[in-house]
């Protein structure tokens, strides 16, 4: 039949789509690998200024503190309430302390902090570097023999690795305290019983697990954000587009890695 060989069948279109998606994934992976290699080279070659690392730590850490604390407070309260209402007489109420501490430290603290930082820190990095890319400032760095990876990328990644675990530690503490106050107000569980319960099932491993997650997120968020920023094309519109995409990628990355953590670390 004439023409039928011209129009691709549904299966062919599907395969072409898969091939395209595969190519895109490979391209992103390749670019990220090169970015990481250059960041490591910059660090090893001592081409990263301490001052810009400190500056980024301030921007990412100190300036994010209020929103991170607010999120942790809400997370602690919600966990405490949810847990509290499910208690029947059979289980001693102090177990609530353990539920709150474990949920906050293992999940809520690291994940909610990371999600908040995706918006607060990651989007900002992508928009900032994307703007520099489309206004040719990245090219300008190369043209004057400076390396934008050492100047822009490396300090942000180092700062993320240092700052995010600290923020998560703060979030953990604040979340547990908020949960404790909330337990007293909602189900009348006193602080002493709450802490007794929290300690009962506590393992030092839990904190390690929590901060390892934080470290991984603190690395991933700036890396994805920088990668997306540096591949921005097409003016202000392009910046908007890559920033939105970057937020989606970072959020997915955080959630997927969070799901991968238990099988990798809890065995």
């Amino acid at each position, binding site marked *: 039949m004439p023409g039928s060989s011209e129009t691709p069948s549904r299966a062919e279109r599907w395969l072409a789509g898969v091939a395209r998606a595969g190519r895109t994934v490979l391209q992103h992976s390749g670019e990220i690998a090169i970015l990481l290699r250059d960041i490591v080279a910059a660090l090893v070659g001592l081409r990263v200024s301490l001052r810009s690392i400190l500056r980024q730590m301030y921007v990412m850490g100190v300036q994010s503190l209020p929103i991170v604390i607010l999120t942790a407070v809400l997370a602690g309260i919600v966990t405490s309430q949810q847990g509290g209402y499910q208690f029947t007489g059979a289980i001693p109420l102090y177990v609530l302390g353990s539920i709150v501490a474990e949920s906050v430290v293992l999940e809520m603290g690291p994940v909610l902090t990371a999600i908040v930082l995706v918006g607060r820190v990651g989007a900002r990095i992508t928009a900032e570097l994307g703007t520099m890319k489309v206004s*040719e*400032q990245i*090219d300008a760095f*190369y043209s004057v023999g400076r390396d934008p990876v050492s100047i822009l990328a490396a300090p942000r990644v180092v700062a993320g690795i240092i700052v995010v675990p600290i923020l998560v530690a703060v979030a953990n503490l604040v979340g547990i305290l908020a949960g404790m106050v909330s337990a007293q107000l909602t189900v009348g569980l006193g602080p002493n019983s709450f802490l007794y319960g929290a300690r009962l099932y506590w393992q030092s491993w839990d904190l390690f697990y929590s901060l390892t997650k934080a470290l991984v997120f603190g690395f991933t968020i700036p890396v994805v954000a920088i990668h997306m920023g540096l591949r921005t094309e097409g003016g202000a519109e392009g910046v908007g587009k890559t920033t939105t995409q970057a937020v989606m990628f970072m959020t997915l990355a955080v959630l997927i890695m969070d799901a991968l953590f238990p099988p990798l670390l809890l065995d």
Partner: protein
Amino acid sequence: MQTRPVIRYRAVHKAFDLPVLEGIDLDIFPGEMFGLFGASGAGKSVLLKTTIGLIVPDRGDVEVDGRSVFFGDRRDVRKIRDKVGYVFQHAALFDSLNVFENVETGLPLRRLRAMDGRRVARLVWEALERVLLDPREVMTKLPAELSGGMKKRVGIARAIVGGPDILLWDEPTTGLDPVNTAGVQRQIRRLSRELDVTSVIVTHDIEGGLEMCNRVAMLEGGRLRFLGSPTAFRASGDPIVRAFVDRTAAEAAVDLVATT
């Protein structure tokens, strides 16, 4: 004796989604003022960027001062970038640095490290004066506080502060009003002479380009549609060249009305 070209583009090919450059062969000789014309999107900036390796061609190579940009080692690229000043279309000043710091980045890192602060300050000062800016007034300003014309001048100062042998100008007058356009044109001519550099100027402004350059080319359809003297360009009977000249003249008239 034939002089050796300072820049050689050899069979430069580049495609993004569509082919942009399809085999550019071009030699630029010492001391030239070379004008590159072409419609918007023709690939002028892409070609200019290959000169210092900001864009990597799919095929072909560029040689600067006998050094290969794409097949030499990294040190060659660094030396080339030290010797070439690049003036970006919208100046591309670093947003977070003030004017002094912006111009300072134009000094090659190795030289900068070996210099004391006073010498650096003097070089920056001189570069700003060369582009007719008052160093006292602008030095501590951030790019956001400057007008378009001033940004362009700071961008030029950054390109010349290191004492380049070659200057690459990407649309130095686009977006400027007629007064600023004339000013920047005078500067290009004066700086090229004073600094004894070779200049490649990408421009929309055909009249200005023909007036200042000793040789011009027109990029069209991924190739050099025209290459020769300004006189030959004016006399060219090539319908595509003619159409381009007429269209750009009409656009320039519209721009003039819009900016005045």
